[in-house]
């Protein structure tokens, strides 16, 4: 017993230890502990974000250095606080509170004291920096915009949010990522791949050398430059013309589907969302719920398209063989639906297709529309045929562009009206408003421009896109180089285009001709209503215009939509005309026209519904 005492104790201790070690090393061990190992820190080496160029290779977005003033609280020696604060451009209270925050975060680790100093502030500070122990300047890269335009198209980069962190293992908290526009859409191309260095840390979180001699480390892969289809000059000019107006402009090159300009008004300088003032500016833009500058009207607004839609109804009627260009309808300064007369501004008389289009006769198109439906034994079948044709122009659904947002517009189908009126309780006359682009149809300016491009091409379009070339290889998604054919035969386009060309010769836009350039266009004047504080009120009509030029070899197709701009030929028509001249001729000869557009604003119209006073709409004088 006495002899065995110590031996048994040794054996018991041995088993106890092995038991405890099994618990620790076998049971509690989990293989992914390396990820949360406090001793290994990953340091990222960020490559430069790719530049963005316009279609002619002009720089639109580059990078600029910014300078963060960093502090390691432990290493700070007593300093002349007042001098330092004046160099940094902050007051003493801010300095003290920021120092406390930094110290609270960690006395040993660097914190940002003042973020994103400008180059000028940095220059002042740099030479004095050595007097301030414990502080240093860290260089960072920010976006630099070589333009004051295209803010919504280009988008911005900002810190990744929690959802993205959870769902995309690539990102680490605090990293920047494209969140809107091209920056978002081509994020992976632009950002490249960051390099990783694994650093072995000690328990004070100090670096003590590379982990595993850097075997797991990777080098950064620089981001690709990309070239986009925008024409920088056209974009800038368009935004200038949009001064004081709300709406959207889209210009497309019909033969490629490349988006030449994507303008939304009001807009803002993209540089506002970079640097120290970013969050202040962002709040201001984001919370402007009336003018909505961050809401890209060119791709998100879905008004009724108005009269430009008539051209499609004409094309469908020709394709269905229910009319010929020579078929006429009489306009009684309007047309009858049952016993009610619906008005028309064309002046009345007998209209064929040509004059129906250039005079924008509502009665003519109501007739055409009825004929389409009359061809089929039931309204449902007529509706199906009409819907199929309409959708082949890229309406009533997402276009599939490479822009991260978009809106589908609306082409109603029979189900839509069955739900609305009840099965079989509606007919062509019930939905007659669709014949003139009012009623239930809706389209974004981008869809209107694309539709115009399809007409310009006489029967097909390329999916509109913003990307032209990525990096060295230049290859873009092949879906943007495949034509999409409409359901309308090529031969039917000529009479419609003739009518559209005559809009400039004899029609609603005859004052807007450009010497030496044949344009085909169509005005639109769209009734619209808003609900403010529960009260529905009608506002001044939206001004809409679509056109393409030159007629025989189309280089540009444009849709302009100006909120509350009244007649299509007013704001929209003027702006479209100027843009075409600018794009095709490179300069503006009609400087008086240009001056008028640059100076005129619609702020008074936009203020009306909020004034609380009774107001008049559609006023003749302007």
């Amino acid at each position, binding site marked *: 017993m006495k002899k065995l005492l110590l031996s048994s104790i040794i054996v018991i201790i*041995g088993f106890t230890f092995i038991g405890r070690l*099994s618990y*620790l*090393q076998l049971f509690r*061990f989990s293989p992914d*502990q390396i990820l949360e190992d406090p001793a290994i820190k990953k340091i990222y080496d960020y490559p430069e974000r790719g530049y963005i160029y316009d279609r002619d290779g002009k720089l639109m977005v580059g990078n600029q250095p910014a300078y963060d003033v960093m502090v390691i609280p432990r290493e700070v020696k007593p300093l002349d606080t007042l001098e330092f604060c004046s160099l940094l451009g902050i007051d003493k209270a801010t300095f003290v509170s920021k120092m406390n925050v930094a110290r609270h975060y960690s006395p040993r680790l660097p914190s940002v004291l003042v973020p994103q100093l400008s180059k000028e502030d940095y220059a002042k500070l740099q030479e004095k920096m050595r007097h301030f122990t414990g502080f240093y300047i860290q260089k960072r890269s920010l976006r630099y915009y070589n333009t004051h335009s295209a803010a919504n198209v280009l988008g911005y980069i900002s810190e990744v949010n929690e959802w993205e962190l959870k769902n995309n293992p690539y990102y680490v908290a605090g990293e920047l990522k494209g969140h809107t526009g091209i920056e978002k859409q081509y994020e992976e191309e632009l950002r490249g791949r960051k390099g990783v260095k694994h650093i072995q840390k000690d*328990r004070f979180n100090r670096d003590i050398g590379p982990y595993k001699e850097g075997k797991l480390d990777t080098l950064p892969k620089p981001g690709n430059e990309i070239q986009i289809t925008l024409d920088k000059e056209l974009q800038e000019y368009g935004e200038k013309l949009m001064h004081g107006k709300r709406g959207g402009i889209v210009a497309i090159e019909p033969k490629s589907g490349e988006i030449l300009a994507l303008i939304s008004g009001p807009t803002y300088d993209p540089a506002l969302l970079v640097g120290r003032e970013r969050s202040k500016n962002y709040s201001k833009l984001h919370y402007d719920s009336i003018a909505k500058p961050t809401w890209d009207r060119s791709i998100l607004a879905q008004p009724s398209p108005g009269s430009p839609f008539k051209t499609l109804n004409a094309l469908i009627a020709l394709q269905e063989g229910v009319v010929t260009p020579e078929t006429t309808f009489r306009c009684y300064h309007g047309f009858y639906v049952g016993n009610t007369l619906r008005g028309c501004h064309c002046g009345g008389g007998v209209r064929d297709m040509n004059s129906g289009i250039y005079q924008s006769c509502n009665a003519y198109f109501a007739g055409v529309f009825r004929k389409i439906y009359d061809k089929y034994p039931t309204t449902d079948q007529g509706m199906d045929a009409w819907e199929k044709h309409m959708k082949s122009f890229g309406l009533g659904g997402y276009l599939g562009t490479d822009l991260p947002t978009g809106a589908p517009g609306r082409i109603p189908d029979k189900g839509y009206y069955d739900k609305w009126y009840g099965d079989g309780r509606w007919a062509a006359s019930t939905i007659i408003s669709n014949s003139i682009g009012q009623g239930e149809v809706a389209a974004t300016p981008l869809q209107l421009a694309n539709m115009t491009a399809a007409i310009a091409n006489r029967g097909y379009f390329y999916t509109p896109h913003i990307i032209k070339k990525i990096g060295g290889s230049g290859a873009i998604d092949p879906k943007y180089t495949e034509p999409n054919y409409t359901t309308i035969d090529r031969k039917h386009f000529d009479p419609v285009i003739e009518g559209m060309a005559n809009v400039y010769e004899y029609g609603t836009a005859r004052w807007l001709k450009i010497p030496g350039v044949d344009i085909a266009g169509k005005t639109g004047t769209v009734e619209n209503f808003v609900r403010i504080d529960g009260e529905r009120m009608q506002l001044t009509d939206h001004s809409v215009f679509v056109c393409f030029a030159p007629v025989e070899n189309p280089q540009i197709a444009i849709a302009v939509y100006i909120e509350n701009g009244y007649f299509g030929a007013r704001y929209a028509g003027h702006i479209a005309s100027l843009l075409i001249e600018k794009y095709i001729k490179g300069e503006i000869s009609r400087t008086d026209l240009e001056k008028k557009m640059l100076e005129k604003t619609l702020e008074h119209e936009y203020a009306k519904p909020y004034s609380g006073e009774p107001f008049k709409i559609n006023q003749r004088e302007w």
Partner: protein
Amino acid sequence: MSGKGPFGRIDWISVILYLLLVFIGWINIYSTSLTETDSSIFDFSTLYGKQLFFFGIAVLGIILVLFVESSFFERFSSIFYMVSIVLLLGLFVFGKTIAGATSWYDLGFFNLQPSELAKMTTALALAKFLSDIQTDIRTRKHQMYALVIILLPALLILPQPDPGSSLIYFSLFFVLFREGFPLYYLGILLVTVVLFATTLMFGTVWVTIGLVILALLIYTFKRASVKIPVLPVVGVIIVSILFSLSVNLVYEHVFEQRHRDRFALWLSLEKDEKKLEEIRKTIGYNTYQSEKAIESGGFFGKGFLEGTRTKGDFVPEQHTDYIFSSVGEEWGFLGTVTVILLFSIFFLRLIHLAERQKSDFSRMYGYGVISILVFHYFINIGMVIGLLPTIGVPLPFFSYGGSGLIFFSMLLFIFLKLDSNRLKDGI
């Protein structure tokens, strides 16, 4: 001499196990103290270089021990003991303070820690006293003498303060038990510890109820032929209850907060999660980090020099008291179990050697050596893997430290020398 030289009959199994442990220990010291800039393992400015140097001195010491006549140790053990007592006393005047403990003499090239020396000399002195023909351990008087020999150095070391080393001297009680010191002392000690812990955990009321139930159970299930007198049992229960009552007094008024925190952590007394976390991060920090390091090693470990927490110096005192956590992280479960097995086999081998001694002195000294080594091993690894509260004692042959390595080696080899000489003892 038997003509085979000083190494002749030495127990090579023990020597090899010893060398293995020292080697594995050194490997881990190398790993914990390696920095990027060091190159040579003989760089004596580094910890692993120094440890290698200390091992050299230890080898010199071992050779010295092996060449000395074995009767020398028995004959001069009282003098050695006196010298180490004097050295311990001298610390009060000439001691050098390192990390808050005045435990060292500064010899210029080397800091001597007399408490390490005293472990050896106390073991020798105790063996000498017990093996004396006139000593009868069954008498109270001699029991008292033995206790004084053991407790005198412990008392001198306690105020340095070095409670860990002090505690080690209690291991020598195993020598007494082996030699006929009544085992019920051990029983009393165990009961005391259990009462102490249970009182802290459950309170005096529950301990009392438990004791009464236990007594009733004994009476219910005892064989009819066995007669247990009632009065002493009642007496034991009353004494226990009084002790239990005093525990709370001592705990609240004699212990300091840092002591209480250690117990709170060890016995999971603190129920408030927040406070427990706080304790874990302060008093329990070392243990927490060392457990985490061992845990992260898994079955195979991260590999030699690949221990991220070891490299990051996350475990404080890792090269000394917490060296075992480096084994755990870099060599995994395989490594830790290997080390446990090596130690266990080594100890069992030494017990085998001790039991085969003809000379009482050799056997008693042998038991002293084993007890001291086992106690270190138990307390140290128990602490590192989170089974015992934090008590600072080194892991023999493993932990960095000159005095430790040298005196542990000499402690061991004096016994191996005695063992190699056992055949002559009978003559």
